[in-house]
């Protein structure tokens, strides 16, 4: 039962954590959610037909639940932030700041997308095939390419806009 999952685990773990990180924007939380996703997968009976699509769907749902709960438990957020700082000691403060700023921009750019476009884009970036993206999002297989082309265009434009704002901001300083 767990053997097929073991193989899939080796293949998708990094992509899954990255996918979740782009939803919750916290690598440690992303890891925890990925772990939960696999625990659920191991309990799933029977094994889903399309395991990878299944995994990313469950992970996406967990991330959404997580975001809702986080709003209700603001006092926990402080804990998380302290922990996250601890885990990033390797990076110098400047470098860390730069990464954080970049992540904020990417996050804003992603939030400019519709949920469906964003989902398809993140799934594609995680290495899922068009068929798997279709299975995970409910898009028809023929619509995946169109959705992705729109999502990519919009992401690039939104990021460009954010970067432009920042540059003019720097110039004023």
């Amino acid at each position, binding site marked *: *039962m767990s*053997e097929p999952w073991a193989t899939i685990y080796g293949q998708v773990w990094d992509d899954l954590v990255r996918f979740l990180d782009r939803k919750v924007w916290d690598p440690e*939380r992303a890891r925890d959610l990925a772990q939960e996703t696999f*625990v659920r997968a191991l309990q799933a009976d029977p094994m889903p037909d399309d395991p990878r699509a299944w995994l990313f769907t469950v992970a996406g749902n967990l991330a959404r639940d997580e975001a809702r709960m986080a709003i209700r438990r603001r006092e926990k957020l402080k804990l998380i932030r302290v922990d996250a700082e601890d885990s990033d000691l390797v990076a110098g403060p400047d470098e860390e700041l730069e990464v954080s700023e970049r*992540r904020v921009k990417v996050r804003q750019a992603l939030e400019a997308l519709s949920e469906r476009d964003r989902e398809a884009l993140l799934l594609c970036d995680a290495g899922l095939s068009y068929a798997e993206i279709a299975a995970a999002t409910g898009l028809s297989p023929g619509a995946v390419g169109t959705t992705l082309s729109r999502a*990519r265009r919009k992401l*690039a434009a939104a*990021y460009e806009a954010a970067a432009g704002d920042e540059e003019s901001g720097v110039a004023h300083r």
Partner: protein
Amino acid sequence: MSHIDEGRLHAWLDGALGPLTGPEGAAMAHHLATCDECRARLEQESAIRERARSVLASADRALPEAPPFADLVAQARSVGLDAEGEFGPQPVNAAPDSARRRTGRRISRVGLAWAASITVVVGAGLLGRELALQSGRDLPAGLDFGRESVQAPTDEREDLRENAPVAREATPSDSPARQKSELNAVVEAEEPTAGRGAEAQKLQVRERSDADLAEVAAPPAAPAVGAAQEEAKDEESGSRARFAARPPHIGLAIGHPALGCWRLESGQAEAGIPTRLRLTDERLPDEVEGGLRLEADPDPHTTGNDAPAWLPLSADSAWLSIPPRIFRLAPADDMLTGQVRDPTEPSAGDPSEVRYTRVECGTP
């Protein structure tokens, strides 16, 4: 065929339209060969696609270490059986953040200690290596332990320690993943000796893995040679997997009417020697200077390749780890030559020549 819409261009760039030999791929290639407008749009869409990819990648941070897979199995069982085990029942979604985080870390430590003990027992066995080969990605070093541990995910730990052959039987030896790893071994064999047996190839792979260890950071607390080899093998099978998954970045070259198939005519390429392929055609159009693409024939019966693979053929030459017997290329004409060299003596000896001739696509 009317002009190609954006969606299909992206599907094409993502490699989702199937091989060039398929009906959709062939129609696309034909249209792109004859339609300047669509080729220009393909370039535009390709740039947008790259841009989106790099924007997303710029948000990447160092990923936390993956927990051993066996820990997840243990956790799944403890939750599923509602047992009063070490971790206790955990409604995964209802656990508060802080509790879940603590749990996750505790599992990691327990799992590492447990997995390390298993490594000692079976680390040098073939089984661990095969399992490692099945996962085609580079993973954090900590996950090596997880791979060791997946051998008997549902058995008791004692069973594994005392009865390794049981765990060995549990691995399907004829699975597609296994077959693929064997193919990897063939691809990686570099000794320029024709007619080796399978045993000899395996030995060579091991030797090479050992050598590679000098460059690959040793995994923490890896006591057995087998585990170290896995690390090196992971590196290689990982890069191969990424290579196979790489989308076919089709640029202008694909529209060139000289798109064609080539078959190995003479030379030592079949012995699996790394080969430098060089185009001798002088009439390459300027616009392909950035790179040519070579696609090994997707039919395993004619090439021995398990999947279509796109190789970047930058400028006019590229090193191939194994020269394909048949491949497609765009653009090219007349003749290709490959220079073979002995990888153990990189600066010595005259390269012998491997010769390809044009064949009709689909010729076995």
